[in-house]
């Protein structure tokens, strides 16, 4: 398998909950971002190691509703190992991302293109049939339908035309900004078409650069857009490393249960300078020895 395409959605009946049409991905790698995004809301995760890539798009609404009237969503996962001829052109995945990201700037005329395309490729009765089928849906069938959905998407200018180059390796920008979205799609194009290593993420539980510290990686440049962020424009992400919450003051308290009290007590810094300290080290034994001799001799002399 060169390219794997997976689609997750649900059926109308209560018992037909979210599941992949056919076999799902081998590993839910997107869960690594569970602390940074709510998957039921618009999310895009694109990762490339320079050879292969994987992409995850979720929160895509369908026109379908479940039994209690809740909007049904789609999740798309595309994984390519970089070996052989791709079954889905990387440019097609860029188109999917471009379409989904372009809808994150708020409601506007013509939005919902991805919803219409996917609903067209996955009609309600066929989705119900696929979810209820005792045998898994053939991967080729799912792939064919996704490719058909991409073809139904509105054509666009090449991804990079007019897209600004942020000029930073790691950056965060607000998803509500059109230039930021264009820069994001440009980065996705670089990752998938030019096969550059890195990541491009649309995350919805991120508010500031500090929230992304744990995702920084020297070997994988990071471009992030997020709704309702505290940043005005594309903002360079810090180079600090460490887990989220790093930077907190280390506890000054000693271990509570240490039996060696001298090792656990906080010792104030010595204020004596080093040369003086050395002098003391030499003189003190001499003075003490002299004192001891006097102390021993004094009773004898006093007799």
């Amino acid at each position, binding site marked *: 398998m060169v390219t794997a395409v997976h689609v997750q959605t649900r059926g109308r009946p209560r*018992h037909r909950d979210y599941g992949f049409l056919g076999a799902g991905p081998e590993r839910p790698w997107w869960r690594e971002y569970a602390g940074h995004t709510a998957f039921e809301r618009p999310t895009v995760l694109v990762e490339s190691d320079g050879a292969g890539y994987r992409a995850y798009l979720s929160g895509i609404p369908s026109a379908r509703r479940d039994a209690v009237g*809740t909007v049904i969503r789609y999740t798309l996962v595309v994984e390519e190992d970089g070996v052989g001829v791709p079954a889905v052109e990387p440019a097609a995945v860029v188109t999917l991302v471009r379409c989904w990201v372009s809808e994150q700037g708020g409601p506007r005329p013509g939005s919902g293109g991805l919803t219409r395309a996917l609903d067209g490729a996955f009609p309600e009765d066929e989705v119900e049939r696929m979810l209820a089928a005792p045998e898994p849906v053939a991967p080729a069938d799912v792939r064919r339908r996704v490719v058909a959905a991409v073809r139904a998407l509105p054509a666009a200018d090449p991804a990079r035309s007019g897209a600004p180059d942020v000029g930073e390796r790691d950056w965060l920008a607000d998803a509500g900004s059109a230039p930021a979205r264009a820069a994001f799609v440009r980065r996705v194009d670089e990752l998938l078409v030019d096969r550059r290593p890195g990541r491009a993420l649309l995350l919805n539980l991120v508010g500031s650069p500090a929230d992304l510290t744990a995702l920084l990686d020297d070997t994988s440049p990071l471009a992030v857009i997020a709704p309702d962020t505290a940043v005005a424009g594309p903002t360079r992400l810090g180079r600090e490393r460490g887990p*989220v919450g790093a930077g907190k003051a280390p506890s000054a308290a000693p271990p509570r249960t240490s039996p060696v*009290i001298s090792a656990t007590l*906080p010792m104030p810094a010595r204020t004596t300078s080093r040369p003086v300290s050395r002098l003391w080290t030499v003189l003190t034994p001499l003075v003490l020895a002299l004192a001891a001799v006097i102390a021993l001799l004094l009773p004898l002399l006093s007799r």
Partner: protein
Amino acid sequence: MTNQAPAAAAGAAAAGEDGRLVYRIGMVGPSRVGKTSLITALLHDGQRLLEGTPISMKAVGTATQKRLSQHRRELDGSLLAGEFDAGALGGSQDQFTFHLMLDTGVPGTGIELQLLDYPGGWLDPHTRPAGVDAQWEECERFLEQCSVLVVPVDAAVLMEATTASHLRAVPTVLGTPQVTDVVRSWLKRRNERPDEPALLLLCPVKCESYFDDNGGRRDQSATLLQWVRKVYRQVVELVPNEAPDVRNMRVVYCPVDTIGCVEILRADWLPEPDEPGALTFVAHYGVRPPGERSVKGTEDIMIALCRQLVAGRQKVEEREAGLRREQADTAQTFAERDEGFFRNIWYLVSGERRLRADAARSSREEAIQAAERARALTGIVESLARRVHSDRVHQW
């Protein structure tokens, strides 16, 4: 910002970051019952209860803050549009741990509440999607470690079941067999900590149409109570049977108006395709003018939680204060210990004696601070204990 519970937070209460105490609160309910709405209401309204006290309640971390604000925004938009459709609020697709903080204002003395939310469909092995078994196991572990278990119940399902076929569908819609199983596992685990107080909260939600104390037109509270007793009888009966060793186990009934300004207009019991005899419940709500959210009942949850949680905190603080005191005493003894004539002179000259005295003083100060924190929290415990539950609450 992390969705993973701190590793140190094993058990019902444990020390988290900055020495703060971490409590895990479990929720068990079917899909779309309103778990996220209840958490949002808890944060929103819990602050009102704590007004005038040194404690405040806040969301911790960007992820929790954004999750709650997204949910509130959807809800507010729905109310502004003049119609409320419970189905319009998207359900959870993945597990998520909400981090709320009962903050005393003194660094390191807060209590962090971790509430686990997850797709209700995961409760039922038949509807659980393939590939989430590992995640569900994580949820089960979390639930078993909680000292508080909240069971949200869709009040409308109980109150709008008017025919025999409706009633037959109620256990399926409310997922009572799965809820019972989770409660049973939780109770069994409580036996391992018999001295730890435990709390089982039965929380009917979306109750605004059945109480007349929050803008509602009719009082059907007695009927609701009766139905909850009947449908959850098995759950309540499990308590003495499955957790006989737990000395301080409470079962509290706390109905909540999660929105407050809505009124049920119509309830539909729709046949499920492919499942003969099975019904799906759909409620349609209208918004009462002026359409402002008016949560009620979360105060009672907060009182029940705070009595338990702050009492637990008090115990930990007292233990810590005792340890610090012990440490200070040892440090003092060490500082004043007779080391023999020559060594005493040597320590005096080299400054070692002064260092020991400084260390003892520092340890003593920490002990005093710990004792003060324990005293402050004792005061808050007493203050919260004086508050009385509303007439809605029943304790079994």
